[in-house]
């Protein structure tokens, strides 16, 4: 395959690829830079500074409140997904019980059902459980949507652990839970990190679930920013929007750069076995 782009002289290869890199990076850099730069119609009109971030801080309940909502939703989602998929993956990989394959397939079939199809009835059923308009309700729903990937990922992680490892722990007098906590947990840690990363990105960025399920005071950051833009229709404060996008993007980009290997590993397993 080396020669597929071999017809390109080396210099034009670099020009082409550098151009590509710029196209993919420029919008991010542009947003971060313009959120600080002077701009008419924003809070930052002369000189560089944090005026737009100041607008955000004082918008309605304050950006802090919305960031807090996002943080709570994200942490709860990650915790739910990690616990449920850890135990579920263990069950699916190492145990035999009636209905195992049916439950596994049912979990995977969540992928086949559109978000919107479930969100309309979830509005009603969460209300019956007194979970409507709560952060925990949003987290539970986002966690459910993460389960197919997470359960699949944890199942193959546990399957890759040699059976002797669990058995020797059982012989040493551990219960299955002891074996899980002391012996298997370290072995499936890479899988857990991948699952946690994807759950984090999904929960932090989710827009549609909270749009359907929560009211103004429980909005997470993405929803609050979209609503902020709409409430000042006509005079859209682009500066504040850019500052908001920057706030939203920074944790994702940092986490992605730090955990890039796990991100790719998630794809490896998904794509090879899918």
């Amino acid at each position, binding site marked *: 395959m080396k020669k597929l782009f071999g017809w390109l002289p080396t210099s034009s290869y670099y020009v082409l690829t550098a151009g590509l*890199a710029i196209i993919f990076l420029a919008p991010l850099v*542009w947003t971060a830079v*313009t959120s600080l730069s002077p701009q008419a119609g924003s809070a930052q009109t002369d000189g560089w500074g944090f005026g737009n971030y100041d607008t955000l801080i004082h918008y309605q309940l304050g950006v802090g409140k919305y960031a807090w909502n996002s943080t709570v939703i994200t942490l709860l989602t990650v915790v739910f997904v990690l616990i449920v998929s850890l135990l579920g993956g263990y069950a699916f990989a190492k145990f035999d*019980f009636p209905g*195992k394959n049916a439950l596994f397939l049912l979990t995977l079939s969540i992928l*086949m059902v559109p978000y919107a199809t479930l969100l*309309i009835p979830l509005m009603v059923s969460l209300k019956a459980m007194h979970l409507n308009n709560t952060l925990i309700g949003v987290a539970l729903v986002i966690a459910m949507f993460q389960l197919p990937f997470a359960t699949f990922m944890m199942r193959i992680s546990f399957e890759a652990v040699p059976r002797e490892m669990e058995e020797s722990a059982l012989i040493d007098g551990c219960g299955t839970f002891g074996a899980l906590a002391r012996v298997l947990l370290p072995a499936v840690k890479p899988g857990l990190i991948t699952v946690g990363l994807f759950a984090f990105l999904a929960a932090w960025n989710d827009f549609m679930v909270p749009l359907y399920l929560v009211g103004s005071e429980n909005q997470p950051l993405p929803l609050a920013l979209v609503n902020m833009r709409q409430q000042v229709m006509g005079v859209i404060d682009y500066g504040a929007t850019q500052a908001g996008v920057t706030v939203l993007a920074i944790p994702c980009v940092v986490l992605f*750069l730090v955990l890039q290997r796990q991100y790719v590993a998630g794809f490896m397993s998904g794509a*090879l076995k899918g």
Partner: protein
Amino acid sequence: MATQPSNALARETGGSRPRRLRLPRVSRAGRSDYRRFNKRSLLGIAYATPTALFVLIFFVVPLVLVFVMSGSDWSLLGGRKGVNFPENFHDVVQHRWFWQSIWFTIKYTVIVTILLIGLGLGLALLVQESTKWKGFLRTAILVPSALGLASASLLFYALYSPQVGPISPMLKVLGLTSGDTVILGSPSGAMWATVFLVVWRFSGFYMLLLLVGLQGIPSDLYEAARMDGAKTWKIFSRITLPLLRPSIALSTIMCVTGSLLAFDQFYILTKGGPDASTMTVVQLIYNIAFESKKSLGMAAALSVIVLFALVLINVFQMRVLRDPDKK
């Protein structure tokens, strides 16, 4: 890929054989084996319980409920007010935006899928080998995929704005438009602007999926072909493409499903406008539930239609795209 199911099967049966009961009624050892097997499967059920509860409460129950709702007169604020069975479906199909939104969703899906798979494949080939520069390229192309679709849409909303965005002036300088253009102001402008955003956000994702497939192709195949004097194009079309088929199939199914259900990008960027020209089906569900009719019954009916359409389309795709060897 082809050997996967049989491997899994072998592992499963092999894995349980030592514990599985052979002749439970005969020997004492057999009985204790039986008990151990029982206890072990009870433990398995215990560990699977959280998954089962989650799936039951947040997936199965709503799924049943959406069918009930689709047959009910159910308003956003008033709740259930009796049966409204064929009428909900009838009203949805008669909705003035129903066929329009379906047509637009299909058009959008075809365009996005062709662009994303083509571009994903091109990029995957471009960054295949691991050199420092290609590693950097890979990261650069992947970074947007860490961003949420909602954040990316807000970002491009500003990027496209005639007031602060650089795109309008750039188009003017290039001579593609005259005067101050509002990119999102025309139906085709709004659609292509959204397509560009989605391609920017998802190219890295599909590049990665296809890259994984490319790296699964044994390199001695390439060497053998080159020894036989095969040209680059021939190697690509006779070796790379056929062996990449499972990855391309997976990417296509994911891309088609994702695009058919497009919501965030249009909700934020175009609001379905101008004149509902970029209204997708999922947006129409939202519109019926919250904005125009405020009828959850009709929204549920449309959701059910979308669900069936999606299942049918996916079954069809799997038929067409699956490995011909496995037929």
